[in-house]
């Protein structure tokens, strides 16, 4: 594939936990075209899983709703956006602190945002109470291929 080729996919699905696995497989299949390493695939799957789970359990509080995932590849640069129209976050900064969780009764560890930060290169969170939340993550993929590349 052309190094600077753009390719975009959108997934939209019902906010039910059985679709967490579907979303991971779909996004992993989408990024294979740029030959990511196994570790990179695992990183992206984990970060995506955190964001999608959050939309389902915090955004919609396990009631009905739609989760939208937009993935864009520009060459080997991946952007993943996970969007819900759920309850939103009052204080994004506090929500992003490791170990902070509003659902300890569901055994949430408060590590979701920390994992997204650790496994991706960039993380942005936009949220408005009553309107919903958008999580945007970026990562450069296939970094191991540099050695053999003539650029």
């Amino acid at each position, binding site marked *: 594939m052309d190094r600077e080729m753009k390719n975009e996919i959108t997934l939209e699905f019902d906010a039910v936990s059985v679709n967490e*696995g579907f979303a991971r497989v779909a996004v992993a299949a989408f990024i294979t075209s740029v030959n990511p390493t196994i570790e990179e695939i695992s990183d992206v799957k984990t970060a995506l*899983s955190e964001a999608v789970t959050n939309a389902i*359990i915090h955004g919609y509080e396990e009631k009905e709703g739609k989760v939208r995932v937009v993935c864009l590849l520009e060459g080997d640069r991946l952007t993943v956006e996970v969007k819900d129209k759920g309850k939103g976050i009052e204080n994004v900064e506090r929500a992003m602190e490791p170990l902070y969780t509003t659902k300890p009764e569901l055994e949430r*560890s408060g*590590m979701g945002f920390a994992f997204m930060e650790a496994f991706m290169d960039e993380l942005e969170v936009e949220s408005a109470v009553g309107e919903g939340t958008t999580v945007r993550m970026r990562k450069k993929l296939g970094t191991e291929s540099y050695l053999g590349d003539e650029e």
Partner: protein
Amino acid sequence: MEENFKVIDNYLMVKMPEEIDHHQSAAISERADMFIIHKKVNNVVFDFEKTVFMDSSGIGIIMGRYKKVRCFGGKVFAVHVNGAIRRVIYLSGLHKVMDILE
């Protein structure tokens, strides 16, 4: 699911699934607690042999069981911890409360 839980002496052995996410985590925790409470086991061993994916829901399962058994002086162990699972465990600090057996 039943075949993934086994009591040996004072230890509950839990075979973790291929993918550990929020979809299955509540069921695993509930089942494990049934054994901890009714069979009075003190220690829990999580076996990651089959596991290829775990997100922070897995942290919740392990931390939750740890909090239950430590009151009676019990411990939590992990076996067959491979690359991706290891990173999640260390990143979350779980290795500080859990013995990882190689």
